[in-house]
């Protein structure tokens, strides 16, 4: 029924074990030149979702676009999970400082 449709890109997960025992502050960035359908170069902070270029979907007879996601999250107090389309390059700064229950609360 929609004039446009969005199709989620296939996303992949990669876990990083830091063993800090707490969910840390994380600043992470993606190399846009490696990001599927972004059409951009340079580095940008994540998380975000984005749309690839529009195309005509003959099966539906409508215009459509692929929607991608680049994000991270703390799976538990020792593990961060990065999520992105295939072959995306991400660099993250992981801080010792906990996101909560820090001594200065």
């Amino acid at each position, binding site marked *: 029924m929609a004039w446009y449709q969005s199709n989620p890109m296939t996303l992949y997960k990669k876990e990083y074990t830091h063993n800090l025992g707490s969910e840390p502050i994380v600043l992470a960035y993606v190399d846009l030149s490696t990001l599927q359908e972004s059409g951009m170069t340079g580095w940008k902070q994540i998380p975000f979702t984005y749309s690839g270029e529009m195309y005509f979907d003959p099966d539906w007879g409508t215009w459509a676009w692929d929607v991608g996601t680049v994000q991270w999250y703390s799976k538990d107090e020792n593990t961060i999970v990065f999520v992105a389309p295939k072959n995306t390059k991400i660099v993250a700064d992981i801080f010792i400082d906990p996101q*909560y229950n820090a001594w200065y609360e």
Partner: protein
Amino acid sequence: MSRPVIKIAKPGRSVIGLSPKDFALNTKYALPKIYKQVTVEDDTIIPNPLGYPHGAWCFRRLNKDSYYSLGGAEPASFWEPYVHVSGPILSSLFTGNEYTCLSSTSSGSLYAGATVRDNEIEIRNLEHIIGYDGGTPIYGKDTSISTALFAEPLGETDKDITVGGNPVLKVAPEGRDVKALEAYRQNLDGRFDTLKIFKTGELTLSLPEETIPYMGDCVVRTATFNHGLGYPPMYFPPATVNMNLSTWGNTHGNITLAVPGFGYDFSTVDVYVDSNNLYIRSIRASNGPDAFGSETGPRTHPALTLSLHYTLFYNEIGSDFDLLTN
């Protein structure tokens, strides 16, 4: 090789045997180095003086014309309701003194915010159409975009950077010569600014189960933490405004994704700061008509608790400086 290390313990504790997270300062670990903060009102490209890609953290200064998606996801069928958004909140979303983390998504485009390349830093405050004067579009945008630029490279580089200022306190990583090491490889270099934690805590917003009449006005609820700094501070996590509630993440406020708009759950959540407070705001919408224009009935929202584990920094959003030249 032995090396000097500066350690400062949290109040009342000894540095001996202390957990790494409990130090006020421990130069065994690298401190992030901010070499510049810059605020722009329009799309701007500035030279990258470092010559390599590095981190950039952006915040939006919001106003009544800032991008804010009021639409929901496309209904799953012809008989499902569209999102209906109305009420006083639409004319008072932001007053001009609020700041939020810039997510490319929440600002409507991947092009928004800072993109760092080898030789340039592109900072974009994108315009969007907020109305029409006859057939002529009227554009709106955020008041400004403030960006903190970090010296650490996002990958390998053999570049060196020139930083002025003396005297300087430096601590190198273990086994490295502090005199020969590039500034961005030092664990501590007093010529740069860094992130300074003011407070961490949990901010909770409790939402009751409630039913909004068909085509009724939005229900708005807000929780605040009074930081009292007198200026807008940088904060973590990278929560922003106009987030789809279903992407809130786990109960730790571990913001994993910022999908704009009201989404499938007819709700949106804002996280932002001003000079006095940190805010979580929920805006719940009602049902509109279906695809045939027929009435669909009231909408019931479930009881829900939003919890944000936040870190507020002493670093001020919009306080510009350039430590490479000054």
